[in-house]
């Protein structure tokens, strides 16, 4: 006897007219709330995304490039490094190769007596320019040249400031271009170098380093044709895994790692902590959203209690009435999502124009659209539940009670 057809159609019919002719302020307020909750759920994500991107870019530009090749198991050096560099340069998809040789040293500023023990890295400046970006972040002086023998390039944090209380890390106490520093090598050689340039990448690990030419280090250490690591630049960071397997396919027996494999441990924990905070913020935002949407929907439905009573009196099933409210909430969620995405893009645009300077550099926020999509789905589910409860409650009331309002 009971007819069950037309459920969705009649719900949609009522929902469309309710949206078109209902209270505009309530509709706009609800859409705005959903949009703001979406922004709240994703704001930290876009900042974290920016931090991760910035960190990754710095790792790629100054530390690891796209692929890093390390000595074989139980070996300290890559032997026949020159030959390997030559082979790597011939592999399709390789845009640049540079070999690094590093050794532990103590650098002293003879003027102030400050000294720092660190790993001094050497490279061939011609090769290095094709792989890393040091030449672009020289803030004073010049980059190293292939023939330099008594010149050193040092990071801004290692150089330090005259007023050492301003230093973020222990430094040489304000070394400038043209000053001389003394480098004591592990093999006992002590040599004076002129500071040729000071670079600043804004990455603390990188800016507390120092570089000399490979020829210079080879002459001091009496080595040749060895390296502690070889950096390979490919087409893009995303293509690094493919390039890794291409290189391995060419018979390279050294350890071949992508930049992401190499850098996981360093900032990984920090990123995980930030992601945890982000998840907590999302949950809080969802709880706030569900409460607010529940209140707005509840008031909205209570205000329409009489209308619901009328619809029931003339024979419209309560499931159809509930369905119409759920469709309205879905519409509000869809509009809220669109407004929210526009707001997020607006924030990203504003923060791209007026970049925030983080300690590690200028941050360009990055929207993670998979996270945005996930938050939209969550928001829709929460909104539907928040709307369903009061809709069911009112639609389930006795007709005459509902009609009294």
């Amino acid at each position: 006897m009971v007819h069950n057809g037309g459920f969705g159609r009649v719900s949609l019919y009522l929902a469309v007219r309710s949206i078109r002719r209902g209270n505009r302020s309530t509709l706009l307020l609800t859409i705005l709330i959903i949009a703001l909750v979406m922004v709240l759920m994703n704001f930290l994500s876009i900042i974290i995304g920016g931090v991760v991107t910035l960190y990754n870019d710095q790792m790629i530009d100054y530390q690891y490039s796209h692929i890093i090749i390390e000595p074989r198991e139980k070996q300290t050096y890559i032997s026949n490094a020159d030959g390997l560099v030559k082979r790597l340069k011939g592999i399709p998809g390789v845009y640049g190769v540079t070999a690094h040789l590093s050794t532990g040293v103590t650098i002293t500023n003879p003027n102030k007596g400050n000294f720092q023990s660190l790993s001094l890295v050497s490279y061939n400046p011609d090769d290095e320019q094709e792989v890393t970006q040091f030449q672009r972040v020289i803030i004073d002086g010049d980059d190293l040249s292939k023939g330099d023998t008594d010149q050193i390039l040092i990071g801004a944090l290692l150089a330090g400031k005259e007023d050492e209380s301003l230093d973020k890390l222990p430094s040489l106490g304000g070394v400038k271009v043209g000053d001389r520093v003394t480098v004591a090598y592990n093999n006992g050689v002590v040599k004076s170098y002129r500071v040729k340039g000071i670079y600043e990448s804004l990455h603390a690990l990188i800016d507390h380093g120092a570089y000399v030419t490979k020829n210079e280090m080879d002459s001091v250490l009496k080595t040749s044709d060895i390296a502690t690591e070889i950096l390979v630049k490919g087409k893009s960071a995303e293509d690094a895994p493919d390039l890794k397997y291409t290189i391995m396919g060419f018979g390279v027996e050294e350890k071949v790692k992508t930049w992401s494999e190499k850098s996981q441990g360093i900032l990984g924990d920090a990123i995980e902590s930030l992601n945890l905070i982000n998840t907590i913020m999302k949950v809080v935002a969802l709880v706030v959203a569900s409460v607010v949407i529940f209140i707005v929907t509840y008031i909205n439905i209570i205000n329409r209690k009489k209308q619901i009573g009328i619809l029931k009196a003339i024979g419209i099933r309560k499931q159809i009435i509930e369905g119409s409210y759920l469709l309205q909430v879905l519409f509000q969620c869809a509009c809220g999502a669109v407004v929210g995405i526009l707001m997020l893009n607006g924030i990203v645009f504003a923060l791209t124009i007026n970049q925030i300077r983080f300690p590690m550099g200028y941050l360009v926020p990055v929207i993670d659209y998979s996270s945005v999509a996930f938050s939209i789905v969550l928001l829709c589910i929460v909104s539907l539940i928040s709307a369903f409860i009061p809709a069911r409650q009112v639609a389930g009331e006795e007709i005459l009670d509902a009609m009294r309002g």
Partner: protein
Amino acid sequence: MIDVVDLKKVYQMGLVEVGALKGVTIHIDKGEFVGIMGPSGSGKSTLLHQLGLLDTPSSGTIRLNSTEITRLSDEERTWYRLMHLGYVFQDYALVSELNVMENVAIPMIAQDRPIDECYEAAKSVLKEVGLLERKDHLVYELSGGEQQRVSIARALVNNPEIIFADEPCANLDTENSRVVLELFRSVNKDLGQTIVMVSHEPWHMEYFDRIIFIRDGVIDEERMRE
């Protein structure tokens, strides 16, 4: 057509039970225009609500045609209201978010009939009640009398077996009340529509075929129109 036997309705007011209907037995034939009259609180609206399936009686039986409606489930009662009954309420009870034509068409739309067919039927009924030119207006743009005519059009659109009207003229002036009552009478006479209407205005009696007087929840008197 309508058979009511020993109908009782008791309301629980806290710890006190209040009997609104105390054993009502009536019979209404198809095509009758019956008025239920009585003083305030006599139980006339309560009786109409039980007959119209808007409320459930405490005991007794109601048969509409051959269906004993007191045995229907909530879903079945909803469906029965939609398919077989029409309502006109004191405060018009129109849906503010629907325009005039949509308000009239909504009982047909709820039956899952094609929208065009529903709108055509609505326009036809609106023409009968003289409001076709107002079909696209929202209900708040109409006068009280016009809103009540829309309400009557909505009650008629499904060709219901019975129309229940609960003091439909209570919020109208005399002129508009006459328009509404004339409309009811013409529907009753021309279409043979069964109408059960609650009223407390003595001058409405001239429109009814039969008047059932109710007092303190029991039938006090039944009178045929003179």
